[in-house]
């Protein structure tokens, strides 16, 4: 047990754990000091000064996020002077903020807006100089708007500490300080992987996804094309939050129904193509185990991870599975298998990925994924974008009658559902690979060793007398640690799953913003989203990808068998080394 100390908060005595910050001690007592640059998963910056408190004996107010608690400390949290100082601090932040709230992407879901309201800014005392910068709209995934940036540094710390991509840093100084990539290069040219975690942690709209909602509305009104959507597992696990539905409710039928109401002609399930991915990937893995190809095999579903491996780990490219992601597999099947089956001109199909991910927008633009001179995916919208579209179109999502996904790519196994959680792809692959290799059904299909939210997890499965060692990492920083191990000891694992975002796709860069009573990437909320997918898995009769009847049919009617020539042409690809301008330091340390 940690030693306890006595403190006085607003003249009342409390016992708290020693060795923590004032903020954490006050959190444990039910005081939530207003805060801005602080984030529980990131290092302490102490930049914004919003979280100040008064400590007896110290002349100035102290930032509670960075000041250690001490025995007999006398703290005041809500004096007149403090309230005024906090109010002034937030007002000064607003002074060189554009204040165009009513036309802003984050109107009503903005942390700065909420904070300003909570601080009681009802009239303005100061008028500051506004910053003038161009938006960087060069990237496929993320847009950077320095005018909206309040320099809290959460994006910088996220990109550096958790993702270790180090695309962002403060440049210049004082009033001219801007968060930017090296050499003020465009996002497109930088090491940005498009993971979108900067968007998740940004308190304002300084980072947002490249928004395609207007284009999509236009397409949905175009009767000359056939509009087809498919929905990633993690979208259903989180979209409810955008409608103030408590986290953890899977809204599968609701999303399908809403997309049909929006005007899509067909709504398929990306979980179906997750099953298809597993068929290909499990077979590819077995081939590699039998000596055809490099081990460990590393998964290739996560778009941010793919950009990361191309630029930071090009030597591991041969270890990466050649399977396209479920989104691109689905796009490929829509424009070939489905088009053929329905006798539709594939050039008339407009295929839309509804994804929890911003990097998928970048993936959709990749030339190496094109099939028969077509992009498998014409457009990607995130959970956030589609939630907005549903609201904007006047669809009553909270009371909508659930509908089924469409045939012939609407059925999925439980294995497809858990694709959205860290460890899920591995677990799904094991369920199928085990049976392929041994001919026996894996009875205990919930692989608990690789579940959970620890940064890196490992497990062992005995298949056909052979020990298969697997490892899972989520978040690109954890991935870096795991890959360092792999580089030192290439024989340590057979199979590795990497997802670029914290928690996996459920924590994707395109998921709904944190509500007013949580923080971005709150672990409890991630757990609930994960549970939503695990519950979907448990609720299904079919829990193994190879048992999915739609998958069996597509092989029978179209693909032949996994890793067939058709599969290779449409479902597999090869990635190549990327050298973003000037930046290739490897094993970048967090500092």
């Amino acid at each position, binding site marked *: 047990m940690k030693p306890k100390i006595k403190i006085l908060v607003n003249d009342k005595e409390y016992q708290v754990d020693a060795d923590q910050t004032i903020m954490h001690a006050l959190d444990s007592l039910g005081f939530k000091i207003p805060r801005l640059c602080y984030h529980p998963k990131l290092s302490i910056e102490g930049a914004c000064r919003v979280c100040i408190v008064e400590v007896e004996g110290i002349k100035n107010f102290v930032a509670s996020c960075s000041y250690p608690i001490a025995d007999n400390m006398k703290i005041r949290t809500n004096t007149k002077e403090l309230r005024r100082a906090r109010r002034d601090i937030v007002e000064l932040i607003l002074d060189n903020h554009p204040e165009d709230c009513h036309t802003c992407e984050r109107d009503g879901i903005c942390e700065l807006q909420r904070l300003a309201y909570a601080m009681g800014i009802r009239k303005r005392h100061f008028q500051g100089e506004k910053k003038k910068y161009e938006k960087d709209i060069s990237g496929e995934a993320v847009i950077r708007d320095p005018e909206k940036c309040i320099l809290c540094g959460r994006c910088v710390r996220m990109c*550096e500490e958790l993702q270790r991509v*180090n*695309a*962002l*840093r*403060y*440049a*210049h*100084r004082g009033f001219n300080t801007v968060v*930017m*990539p*090296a*050499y*003020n290069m465009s996002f497109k040219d930088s090491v940005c992987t498009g993971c979108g975690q900067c968007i998740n942690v940004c308190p304002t709209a300084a980072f947002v996804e490249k928004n395609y909602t207007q284009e999509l509305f236009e397409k949905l009104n175009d009767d000359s094309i056939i509009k087809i959507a498919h929905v990633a597992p993690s979208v259903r696990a989180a979209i409810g939050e955008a409608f103030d539905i408590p986290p953890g409710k899977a809204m599968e039928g609701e999303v399908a129904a809403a997309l049909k109401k929006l005007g899509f002609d067909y709504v398929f399930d990306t979980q179906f193509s997750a099953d298809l991915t597993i068929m290909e990937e499990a077979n590819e893995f077995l081939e590699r185990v039998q000596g055809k190809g490099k081990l460990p095999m590393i998964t290739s579903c996560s778009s941010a991870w793919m950009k990361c491996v191309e630029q930071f780990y090009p030597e591991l490219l041969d270890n990466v599975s050649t399977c396209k992601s479920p989104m691109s597999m689905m796009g490929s099947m829509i424009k070939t298998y489905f088009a053929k089956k329905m006798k539709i001109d594939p050039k008339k199909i407009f295929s839309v990925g509804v994804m929890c991910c911003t990097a998928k927008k970048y993936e959709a633009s990749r030339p190496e994924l094109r099939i028969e001179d077509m992009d498998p995916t014409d457009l990607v919208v995130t959970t956030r974008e589609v939630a907005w579209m549903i609201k904007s179109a006047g669809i009553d999502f909270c009371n909508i009658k659930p509908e089924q996904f469409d045939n012939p790519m609407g059925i999925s196994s439980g294995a497809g559902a858990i694709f959205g959680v860290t460890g899920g792809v591995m677990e799904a692959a094991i369920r199928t690979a085990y049976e392929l290799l041994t001919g026996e059904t894996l009875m205990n299909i919930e692989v608990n060793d690789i579940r959970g939210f620890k940064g890196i997890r490992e497990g062992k499965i005995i298949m056909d007398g052979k020990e298969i060692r697997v490892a899972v990492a989520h978040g690109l920083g954890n991935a870096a640690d795991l890959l360092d191990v792999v580089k030192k000891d290439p024989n340590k694992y057979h199979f590795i799953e990497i997802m670029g975002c914290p928690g996996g796709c459920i924590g994707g860069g395109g998921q709904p913003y944190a509500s007013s009573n949580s923080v971005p990437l709150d672990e409890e909320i991630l757990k609930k989203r994960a549970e939503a997918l695990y519950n979907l898995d448990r609720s299904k009769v079919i829990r193994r990808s190879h048992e999915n009847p739609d998958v069996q049919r597509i092989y029978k009617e179209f693909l032949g068998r996994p890793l067939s020539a058709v599969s290779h042409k449409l479902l597999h690809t090869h990635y190549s080394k990327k050298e973003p301008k*000037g*930046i*290739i*330091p*490897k*094993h*970048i*340390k967090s*500092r």
Partner: protein
Amino acid sequence: MVATDDNKLQELKSYMDICKEKEYPDSQLIAILHKAQALYGYLKRETMDEIAVHMNIPTAHIWGVATFYHYFNLKPVGKHIISVCLGTACYVKGAGKILDAIKRHLNIEVGETTEDKIFTLQEARCLGACGIAPVIMIDEKIYGELNEAKTIELLKKYEKIQ
């Protein structure tokens, strides 16, 4: 010319190798940037890339440091760097007029380099020579008790040497 650049890079790399041996190699970044600027006259993007790879420091971080300090030049500079002191003492003694005269004479703004690549014009805050204000510094040399005419004469001398 290529050979000298190679030598410069070699010298920079040797310097970085020494820095790597120190207790906190990352905190040697400013010293390394100074060294690079001394070698090349300014911080080239390619040089910063070399430093990033050699020291294993993200380029975004190097860029942040290089843009934070005014001392670092991010563009090529002229053969001579003119720093006009705009500290309080110099300013009240007419440094503003001197600066304007130089701008007119060289036809450049502060931070720019003349077309013939001879002069780069910079501002400075107090060069510590208030007793002989107003002063300017050309490269490492201080010139004091100036006025507009004397300053132009001085520049002409430098131009003649070319």
